[in-house]
């Protein structure tokens, strides 16, 4: 039994995506930026599941299944890169990582 409309789910998904987007744009800590990226991924999966449920198909759900797999791999590689960066430069603040700028 579902009472919420599809619009409500999509609006929630868009709002979550926007919050993650602002985290990526405005934060300076690389780890928090990465967390906001994950937030955006989760928001998009919410939209996919909602569409899939309201249209009585399974394709969206299966796609979310794949998104989870890719996200897990992405987090592993991304965090390894951040750790390697910290070893090399001793900082993870994005405004101090400007070696390519000049």
């Amino acid at each position, binding site marked *: 039994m579902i009472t919420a409309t599809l619009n409500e789910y999509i609006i929630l998904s868009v709002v979550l995506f926007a919050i993650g987007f602002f985290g990526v744009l405005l934060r300076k800590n690389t780890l928090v930026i990465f967390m906001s990226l994950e937030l955006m991924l*989760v928001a998009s999966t919410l939209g996919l599941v909602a569409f899939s449920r309201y249209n009585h198909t*399974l394709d969206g759900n299966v796609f979310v299944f794949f998104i989870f797999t890719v996200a897990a791999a992405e987090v592993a590689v991304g965090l390894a890169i951040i750790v390697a960066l910290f070893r090399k430069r001793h900082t*993870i603040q994005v405004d101090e990582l400007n070696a390519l700028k000049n």
Partner: protein
Amino acid sequence: MAPALFHLFALLTIASAVGVVANKNAVNAAMSFLLCLVGVAGLFVQLDAYLLAFLLLLVYAGAVVALFLFIIMLLDTQGRQNWGFKKLSTFTSLVALGLLLTGLGTFVTRGQLDAPNPNAAGGVGAALKPYAYQLFTTYLLPVQVMGFLLLIAMLGVIVLSRKIDGPEDAK
């Protein structure tokens, strides 16, 4: 009952998502992210996607957030300023906020996405069997590609986590 539950989980999700972005302490941000994932899993349950709700908690809350916490503890970068933006990035994000709000407003006022009654047929994603059937017939190739992707990610992490020689400071 059900609309109250939807609003409860939606509020929990949005509030903790704001917590992820606004928290100064990275550990608190990770904890807010955990709460946000619990909210999204609750919404998945309301959408009859029980397997995905379980997987979300297992993969994200269990593995990803724990990994994040490990790295935050390992790097220990507390006591630095996290806010304080350049004018340009503040301006561009305000423009982006305006665009997103316009899009959302248009969607709310003119959206024609109302699908037919979702209760006419039960949720397709509720049972496990359709998932297995789809994964082993229609999506067989993507499953294999995913396996290969995980293998490559594992090798990449092993290579990246070696001790890196060379100059300590690249500046």
